[in-house]
């Protein structure tokens, strides 16, 4: 951990990420106190004062204004006259929330099934490995799209719980399931090799049962792999959510996310490019921050990497 903190670049990006998260969480505060408008309030017929003149929020030809760099419409408006900056933060909240839930789902599934498969081998492993391979063979976006669409229309009812079609948990669930084999497979491989290590033998000779061994011998040794993977999963979840939402298979209206905002923006191209740039740049910065941080963590944890040079 200390090594990571010493890496100033990584630290800077880590701080950036935290700042973005905080900003999104504080969306209501921003909406109320600075922009004085909500994410869905449209001001399509209003005018706003820019450089001394009164300008239509949305011009008669349907082109919304660009950034005013002031409290209201800081980053401009969209085609419905809504404040882009406010929507950015609210959308960011959704994007990050979906990513966070998806990451948790992925980690839980991957750890549970990966360790189980790697340790027990035999039939259980055979079945689970086939399952991983099957889900993994499905190209992620396509599977996500397929599931997303199927679920978007009718929601899901598993008896235990129901998710209506507008719920954020749906895309989170989809992403979590789609991404998990990418993590489960390496974890399984590591559990497999750990199982052959002598300290597991020693535990078996002592008479410890398989569950206890998986929990207290294997799992702690996977910790560093999990720590390396976690930020990568977060980054990919954010990107996947954006892609799904862009295609309409992720977050559904009236909720917004960065992906839906970019989709809206591309529809208006070439006019109002700020509608694409603002959420896009935000996305890139966020994911970049996570990736740089993840890289630094990986460098710090992987002793071999230090011998070869680092970022």
């Amino acid at each position, binding site marked *: 951990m200390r090594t990571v903190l010493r890496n100033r670049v990584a630290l800077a990006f880590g701080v950036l990420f935290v700042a973005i998260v905080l900003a999104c969480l504080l969306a209501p505060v921003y909406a109320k106190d600075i922009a004085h408008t909500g994410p869905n309030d449209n001001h399509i017929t209003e005018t706003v004062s820019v450089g001394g003149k009164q300008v239509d929020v949305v011009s008669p030809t349907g082109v919304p204004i660009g950034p005013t760099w002031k409290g209201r419409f800081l980053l401009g408006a969209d085609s419905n006259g809504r404040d882009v900056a406010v929507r950015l933060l609210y959308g960011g909240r959704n994007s990050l929330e979906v990513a966070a839930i998806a990451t948790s789902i992925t980690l839980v599934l991957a750890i549970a099934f990966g360790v189980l498969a790697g340790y027990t081998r035999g039939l259980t492993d055979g079945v689970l490995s*086939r399952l991983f*391979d*099957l889900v*993994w*063979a*499905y*190209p*992620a*976006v*396509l*599977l996500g*799209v*397929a599931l997303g*669409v*199927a679920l*978007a*229309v*009718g*929601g*899901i*009812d*598993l*008896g235990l719980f*129901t998710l209506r079609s507008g719920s954020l948990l749906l895309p989170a669930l989809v992403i979590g399931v789609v*991404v998990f084999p*990418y*993590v489960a*497979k*390496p974890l399984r491989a590591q559990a497999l090799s750990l199982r052959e290590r002598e300290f597991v033998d020693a535990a078996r000779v002592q008479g410890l049962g398989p569950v206890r061994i998986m929990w207290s011998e294997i799992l702690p040794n996977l910790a560093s792999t999990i720590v390396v*993977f976690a930020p990568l*999963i977060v*980054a*990919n979840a954010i*990107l*996947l959510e*954006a*892609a799904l939402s*862009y*295609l*309409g*298979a992720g977050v559904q209206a009236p909720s917004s996310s960065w*992906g839906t905002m*970019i989709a809206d*923006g*591309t529809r208006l*191209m*070439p006019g109002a*490019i700020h509608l*694409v740039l603002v959420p*896009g740049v935000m996305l*890139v910065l966020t*994911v*970049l921050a996570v*990736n*740089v941080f993840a*890289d630094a963590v990986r460098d710090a944890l992987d002793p*071999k990497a230090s011998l*070869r*040079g680092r*970022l």
Partner: protein
Amino acid sequence: MEASSAPIPSLTDGPRAPRVSSAMTRQLWLVRFLARRVASLVAVLFAITVLTFLIFQAIPGGDPALRMAGRLATPQQVHDVRVQWGFDKPIYVQYLKTMEKVLDGSVISYSQQTNVEQEIVSDLPPTISLALGAGVIWLVVGVLFGLLSATHAGGWLDRALTVVSLTGISMPVFFLGAIMLYWLGYQWHLLPLEGYVSLTSDPWGWFTHMLMPWVALSVVSIGVYSRLLRANLLDVMSEDYVRTARAKGLSERRVLIRHVLRNSLMGIVTLWGLDFAWVIGGGAILVESVFNLGGVGQYAAQSIGRLDIPPVMVVTMLVAAAVVVLSTLVDIAYALLDPRVRLS
């Protein structure tokens, strides 16, 4: 997309072969291996069709007939759909009817009134052009970057390339595409704005129309690929046999090409195969939509937008099948490249 967190196959995983083997035995083994892989391929394809079917038809909650018929269907249409697809019958009958329609080429999009499979066939050229062109670009550039990074590990070039790669990875493909379209297309009028021109009718037009989509798609893949390759190459470079090669007095160039690259070939091929799978499965949809190439991916995307299920289902099945076939080919290439592989 994180194209491969699967463990990169390592050449020095210890010999798994029996000690003595003759050329004859290896040929025999290759044949048996091929047979096994093909059998497994068929099994996986079957599983894919079942899974797709389940996703679209069998999700609990909601009426499958309604889903298939689309949101604008009349009750009569819904009833017809129910009968044709067998939704009133047990689930395996439904599956069989679905597969029958798919293999027959008779899946119809109700809201569009078109035959899905015909649409797909006519939409193939843009998708294939996109995938192959991008594939070549990122293979060449990715290997180049990876090689440069690994041989200058720790130096400024390595760091610069890492920054470039990381930025590439963090970029959503559709965003990059939109930005390129805006600057290069609308603002500076360098390249055509959209659409696809077939290779046979106008090669130059084909090229200029494909250039931006290719770059957009490659950037992300180059990022992922070159970093994984760098790690792989560094691993190989620290192997004992590379040290032996140097001790033999070989020139650095020879060591690099004949020993390092050759032994990383497996990793290169496998990783490329995985990335390609991602491209077909995901990147293509997004890029086609941005640049309006009219490919299979865009078709699927538009259908999603209309919540028109039949095309999405068929495309999903098709692409997943293509990916599985591709990864089988990669496996086979892997076995051919490594004289020691004897998979169980």
